[in-house]
């Protein structure tokens, strides 16, 4: 039986606030309440949730920075913080901080020593990593003079030292411009192709949708949905029919059948030189033929008909509400 790369079972964590926080009567805040999820080897798993949902707390527990009050946690089969697991992990914390007096080369050499990489191997590896994240021209510049995005790239480079099996990335694209985000996405995709396990916390839902196999959505310290991307975004056999008009009597029938009807402006389609007001009907695939026939009989043009694919953003907004998706 293969050991899951990450295992989080009924994990609970409470923060104590205030000066005399551990004294009786001190304020307690539940950061995680019986959180459970798992990530199999070779999977790319997104960890999503609004700010303050418990993502960074969970990642800190996985890395052994914080201790959970309750629950079972295993990272590559070991307790969090175990050096045998940490040897095989690459980690990018949120808002990465480095020694500002070092330059990229020296910092990576420092981390290579801590990771137990032989000096001769590190000497070959470091320039490649710096080039991979697009910092070759800045290898000798002190980190204190780096921009936020450059620091983030350097964080990703250091996480790749030692060819880790598991990458834990907490907001790896935060602070990056669109081209930087694309580069990071390409790095993640290349790591995915190489069979690495990646646990990725991000607010960029469209990017997550492109690269991840699985997602765990957390809100207020509880997992609200988890599963493979396919199951999360599966909408059954629903289809969307876009037509030029919809007679009122037909609309009433459609609503009885449970269809969703929306007035939209359809973009250019064949036969129309400009965008036109149209009607979008989302309905079960079993009814599609009947509806199209009725539309034609009523004199309406069917502009297009496509299977409905759910988006991660829609799912996220439905589960955790508005105000956080980017």
């Amino acid at each position, binding site marked *: 039986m293969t050991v899951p790369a990450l295992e989080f079972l009924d994990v609970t964590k409470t923060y104590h606030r205030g000066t005399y926080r551990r004294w009786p009567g001190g304020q307690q805040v539940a950061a995680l309440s019986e959180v459970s999820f798992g990530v199999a080897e070779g999977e790319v798993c997104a960890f999503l949730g609004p700010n303050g949902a418990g993502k960074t707390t969970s990642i800190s527990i996985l890395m052994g*920075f*914080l201790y959970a009050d309750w629950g079972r946690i295993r990272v590559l089969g070991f307790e969090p913080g175990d*050096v045998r697991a940490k040897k095989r992990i690459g*980690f990018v914390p949120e808002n990465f901080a*480095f020694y500002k*007096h070092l330059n990229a080369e020296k910092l990576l050499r420092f*981390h290579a020593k*801590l990771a*137990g990489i032989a000096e001769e191997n590190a000497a070959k590896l470091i320039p490649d990593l710096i080039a991979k994240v697009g910092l070759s021209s800045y290898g000798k510049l002190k980190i204190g003079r780096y921009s936020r995005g450059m620091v983030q790239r350097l964080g990703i480079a250091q996480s790749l030292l030692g060819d880790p099996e598991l990458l834990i990335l907490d907001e790896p694209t935060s602070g990056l411009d669109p081209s930087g985000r694309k580069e990071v996405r390409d790095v993640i995709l290349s790591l995915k192709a190489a069979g690495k396990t990646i646990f990725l916390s991000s607010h960029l839902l469209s990017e997550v949708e492109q690269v991840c196999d699985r997602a765990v959505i957390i809100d207020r310290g509880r997992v609200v949905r988890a599963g493979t991307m396919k199951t999360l975004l599966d909408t059954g056999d629903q289809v969307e029919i876009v037509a030029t008009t919809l007679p009122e009597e037909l609309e009433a029938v459609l609503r009885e059948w449970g269809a969703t009807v929306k007035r939209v402006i359809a973009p250019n389609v064949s036969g129309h030189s400009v965008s036109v007001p149209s009607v979008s009907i989302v309905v079960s695939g079993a009814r599609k033929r009947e509806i199209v026939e009725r539309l034609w009989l009523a004199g309406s043009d069917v502009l297009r008909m496509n299977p409905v694919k759910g988006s991660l953003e829609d799912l996220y907004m439905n589960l955790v509400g508005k105000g956080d998706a980017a």
Partner: protein
Amino acid sequence: MRLRTILRTIASNTFGIFLRDKLLIVFGALFVCVILMMMTPLLTLRARTTVSNMEGMQTYVLGVVSAIMYMVSGAGSLLAAWAAADAVATEMKSGTILAVMARPVKRWEFLLGKYLGVLLLMGCYVVMMFGLSYLLAWMGGQRVLAASWILLTYPMVRYAIYAAIAMAVATLAHPVLSWVVTLLLGLGAMLVVPGEEPITKAALRWLSTGLYYLLPSTQFLSEDRFLNIKQATLRQTGWAEHLLTLTYGVDYALVVLLLAMWSFHYRSLKRD
């Protein structure tokens, strides 16, 4: 081999951070200014010394030398406590600790590496102090009559104790508080040394005796005990006494450092 690499890497990095620390640079610059200012009257006094006032002048010069030595020695203890508290606190405040602790490094290894970095800094300080002792004595027309190893080892053991205490407190509290607590413990230790007159109240006597055994008795570890500039007052000390005193100091520092490691093992690592 792995442990040695980790400790060396963290210690040398810590030392590098200290060398770039603005507060430390300002402290060093002020310190050099004070020493230079005190050297000027020393040189003047030496130049004015004549055969008739030789003894009086010599006493005065030696007093100045002793004052400088005392200041250098006291500043070292303060520096050791500050550096140790700052070494851990800076990593927590900046968040750099997260990247380091994501590597295959155990918490106690990180703390020990930091501690060794502080001792490296203090080692440099002691060597400078050692050179200064000889320079000042030479300027005062005297010779330092103490074995070199005493001037190097005793302050290092004393600084090791202060650094361990400050580091232990810094794992629990703010670095400034840690520094103040270390300072107060040092002062407290001096106050509870048994005097010639016994304490009459039983409770106070018990408290004083208890604190005397609990707090670091760094007065035993003062190199001033052996740093005699006048040959007439030079006291011979046996190896057994040196061994006992230094073992006490090293043991005290180790116990406190172990407490610091234990405390650090259970604390949350996050950006403060």
